[in-house]
């Protein structure tokens, strides 16, 4: 077969994210990837915390002081929420992997539950954590 000449006009491209109306499932899908990427970077904080602990009291005091500050606590609070949101998003994927939860109302409920559940769980974790002090 003879090679076809390449067209000189721009080819039509399939539409991407910006052309669609935002839906709950789409938003939670995008957010699952964003939270995953955030956790990827956040793991470095865990490494810094553990390295400081292994280094001695001075290094640990500095890191513990940072995470104990208002800014540090804010980072940890958002970290908790992102972690729990990604966890619930993953559990939602397990439900779908099992072949269930694909009905219109079910998938909308699952998407909403991911956001509501992660927010509620984060508050519970922090309230229990602070009360148990």
């Amino acid at each position, binding site marked *: 077969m003879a090679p076809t000449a390449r067209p000189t006009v721009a080819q039509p491209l399939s539409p991407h994210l910006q052309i669609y109306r935002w839906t709950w499932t789409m938003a939670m899908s995008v957010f699952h990837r964003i939270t995953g*990427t955030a956790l990827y970077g956040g793991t470095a904080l865990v490494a810094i915390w553990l390295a400081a*602990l292994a280094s*001695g009291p001075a290094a640990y005091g500095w890191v513990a002081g940072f995470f104990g500050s208002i800014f540090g606590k804010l980072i940890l609070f958002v970290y908790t929420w992102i972690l729990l949101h990604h966890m619930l998003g993953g559990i939602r994927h397990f439900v779908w992997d099992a072949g269930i939860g694909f009905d219109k109302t079910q998938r909308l409920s699952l998407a909403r539950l991911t956001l509501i559940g992660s927010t509620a769980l984060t508050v519970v974790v922090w309230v229990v954590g602070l009360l148990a002090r």
Partner: protein
Amino acid sequence: MAKENIRQNPAVSIRTPRARVRGLGVSHHGAGHWWLQRLTAVANVVLMLAFVVIIARMAGRPYPEAIRLVGSPFVSLVLILAVLSVTIHMRLGMQVVIEDYVHAPATKIAAIFANNFYAVVVAVACLYAILRVGFGQPPV
């Protein structure tokens, strides 16, 4: 016709059925990536809930107490398992993100290299620190 089409067409291909199965498709990994991502995800649910509890119990403790907590065999074990599961999971996840959004071959290879290096550095740094605390090396 393109060479690839002949190779993929079972009627034309000279590859044996066994070779086709062993090749595990175009990625040569089959569903291995997907499967390991799910396996570590299940482990992460348990390990991260334990991790949150450990962090909450650590908060505000003076250094010797923090060392005793992380250095206890059970907490050390949970942290080691968590680091292994999380770093494998995040490396796989980031690879999919790179493959989806980075298309220029040189940038893509560089990004995948960086992803692997980052995951290994984080994993080894965490594991070394946990073992050092567990075996009683840090100055208390």
